[in-house]
C-alpha cells in the first residue's frame, strides 16, 4: 500500500504535463519547428508583422542583402498579403482517413434513458451497452436497462380516475436486456462556429431480449399485488454519436422496445364477487402490444483507446 501514493503522484504529474502542452500555441518561442531557441524579442517562426519583410533591416549585410546590393531588381519583394491569399496547394487525398476507426474495438456506453411515448408512467433509468465492432460499420453487442426505483406514475392518471372514473391499466418496468446488432451507415463532420471541427456518425440498432414488467394495481389495489415477469422484447432504434476524441464520444439514441405486455384486468364486474377478487388468474386482463420508445443520452468509450490505420493517407 505504501507504493500507491507514489504511483498516484506519478500519474498526477503526468496528467499535469499535457495540460501545459495544451496551452502551448504556435507562436510560443519553444514552439519553433526546428527546435532552435528563439530570443524573447524576436518574432516567432511563421509570424510576420504587418508590412515587414523578413531580413529587410539586414539588406546591407549578408544573405538576401547581398543580392539586393548587387542587383536591386533581383531583390525579393513579396507582398505577403497577396501571398497569403493564394491557394495553399495543400495535398488533399481522394479518400481521407476516418477520424475514429471502430473496427476490432469495444465500445462501452453508459447512458440515461427516459420514456418518450408513455404519458401515464415515465420509465427513466440508467443503462449500459457494450458493443464489439466486427467491421468498421457493424457491431454485435448487448445492453441493459434498470428501471425499478425510477418509475414515475403521472398525476394525470389520478385526474382521469377522479374526473372520468375510468381506470387506465398502468405498467412499471424492472429491467430490460437485449442482444443487438449495430450498423453505422452514415458519418460526417461539423464545423462549429466556423472554427473547430468535430466528427459524428449515425447508426441503426436492433435486437432481441427481455423486459421485466408488472402492472401497477389501479382497478383493485386493495387485493391485487403483482410480481415482475420477464417478457420477450424486440428493439429497434437510431443513434447519433459525436466524437470528442478518437475514443470518447457523446451519444443520443432513440430506441423502441416492443413487447407483449400483460395488463391488469379492468373488468370491474368481478369486484363484487369476494371469491373472484382473490383469484390471481383473474387479475390479469388482455395482453397488449407495447411500444416503449425511449431516448438514451450518454457517452461512448472506445477500447483500446488508440488504433492504427491500415494504410497511410
Amino acid at each position: 500500500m505504501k507504493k500507491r501514493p507514489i504511483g498516484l503522484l506519478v500519474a498526477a504529474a503526468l496528467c499535469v504535463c499535457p495540460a501545459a502542452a495544451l496551452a502551448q500555441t504556435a507562436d510560443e518561442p519553444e514552439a519553433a519547428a526546428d527546435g532552435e531557441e528563439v530570443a524573447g524579442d524576436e518574432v516567432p517562426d511563421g509570424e510576420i508583422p504587418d508590412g515587414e519583410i523578413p531580413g529587410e533591416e539586414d539588406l546591407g549585410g549578408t544573405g538576401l542583402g547581398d543580392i539586393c546590393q548587387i542587383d536591386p531588381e533581383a531583390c525579393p519583394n513579396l507582398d505577403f498579403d497577396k501571398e497569403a491569399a493564394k491557394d495553399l496547394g495543400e495535398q488533399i487525398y481522394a479518400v481521407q482517413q476516418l477520424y475514429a476507426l471502430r473496427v476490432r474495438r469495444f465500445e462501452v456506453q453508459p447512458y440515461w434513458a427516459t420514456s418518450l411515448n408513455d404519458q401515464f408512467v415515465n420509465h427513466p433509468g440508467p443503462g449500459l451497452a457494450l458493443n464489439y465492432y466486427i467491421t468498421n460499420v457493424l457491431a454485435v453487442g448487448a445492453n441493459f436497462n434498470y428501471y425499478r426505483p425510477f418509475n414515475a406514475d403521472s398525476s394525470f392518471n389520478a385526474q382521469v380516475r377522479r374526473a372520468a372514473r375510468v381506470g387506465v391499466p398502468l405498467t412499471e418496468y424492472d429491467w430490460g436486456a437485449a442482444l443487438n446488432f449495430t450498423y453505422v451507415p452514415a458519418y460526417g463532420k461539423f464545423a462549429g462556429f466556423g472554427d473547430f471541427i468535430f466528427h459524428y456518425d449515425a447508426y441503426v440498432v436492433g435486437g432481441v431480449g427481455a423486459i421485466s414488467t408488472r402492472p401497477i394495481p389501479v382497478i383493485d389495489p386493495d387485493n391485487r399485488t403483482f410480481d415482475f415477469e420477464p417478457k420477450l422484447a424486440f428493439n429497434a432504434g437510431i443513434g447519433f454519436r459525436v466524437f470528442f476524441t478518437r475514443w470518447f464520444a457523446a451519444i443520443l439514441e432513440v430506441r423502441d422496445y416492443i413487447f407483449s405486455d400483460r395488463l391488469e384486468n379492468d373488468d370491474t364486474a368481478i369486484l363484487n364477487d369476494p371469491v373472484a377478487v382473490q383469484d390471481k388468474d383473474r387479475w390479469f386482463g388482455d395482453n397488449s402490444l407495447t411500444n416503449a420508445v425511449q431516448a438514451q443520452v450518454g457517452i461512448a468509450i472506445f477500447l483500446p483507446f488508440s488504433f492504427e490505420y491500415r494504410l497511410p493517407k
Partner: protein
Amino acid sequence: MRKTTKKTMRRLLVGLTAGLALSATAETAQAQEILLTGPLAGAPAVRKLRLYREGRFEVAPAISFTLLDEYQRTILAGARINYNLTDWFAVGLWGGFGALQLNTGLTDRVQDVNDGRREIEAARRAAGGGPSVSSRLTGVNMGPSFEDQVGSIDWVASPQLTAVPFRGKLALFQNVYLDTDLYFFGGLAFVGVSERQECDPGEGKPCTAEESFERESRMALAPTFGLGFSFYVNKWNAIGFEWRGLPFARNTGGFDNHGGGPDSKFPDQRVNADDRDFKFNQMLTISYNFYFPQQYRVSE
C-alpha cells in the same frame, strides 16, 4: 493467497492510473503536432464553404406531429419562412394549422365507458330510477360526447430567430454525400387553442348542462424553441428535421381538476383557467426547404 491478491490489485491500480495519464499525454502530443507542423497549420477550419443560407430566403413547407399527447394528436400543416441575414443567423416565421386531429387510445376508452354509462342511465330513467353514483360523480366532467370536449391545438404562428452554429457534411453508405447544418431557434408563439368553455354555477352557468361541454377558442402565448437539421440535396433544396418545444398551460380533457381545497389542488365544481395544467407540448417537424435565389455563394 490474500496477500497476493492485494499486491496484484495494488499493481493494477498504479498501472491503470499511470496508463490513463500516459494516454492523456499521447493525445496532447498528437494535437501539438498538427498545430505546429501540419500542412494546414494556421489555415481556417473550412475553406470554400458553400454558403447555403447567407442572403437567401428560405421557404419550407412543413408537416408537424405533436408528441406525448394525452387525448388528441395533432398533425399541423404549415411552413417556415426565413431570411438568412448571414450564414449563421436568420429571422423568420413558422406557422401551421391543425390539419388532422386524432383521438388517442385513452380518449377512445373514455368515450366507450361514457357511452356505456349513458345507456345505463337512460335505462334507469326509463325505469323511473335516479342517476347512478358514477353519473353524479362525473356530471361536471363528462359531457354527452367526450371526444368533443377535449382540448386541441388549432393553429400556431411563431416569429423566431434562428442560429446556425454548426455546418458540416454527411456520408451515407459511403456513397451519398450531403451538406448539412444543425440549427437552434427560439421565439414567441401565438397558439390558437380550443378547450371546454368556462362554466360556474354561481354565475348561472351550471357545469352539468350539455352546452357547458362545448368548446371555445382562445389564443395563448408561449415561448417556443428547438433544434433542427438541414440536409442539402442540391443548390437550393434541403430536407429538414426539427424538434420543437411549445410549453404552455391548457385544459386538455375539459375537466374540473383544480380551484378548490388547499392550494387549489382539488375540484371546485367550476371549469375555468384554474383547471389548466402546464404542459410541455412537443412536436417533430419534417420539411422540404427551398432557397432563393437559387444560387449560393462560396466563401474564400
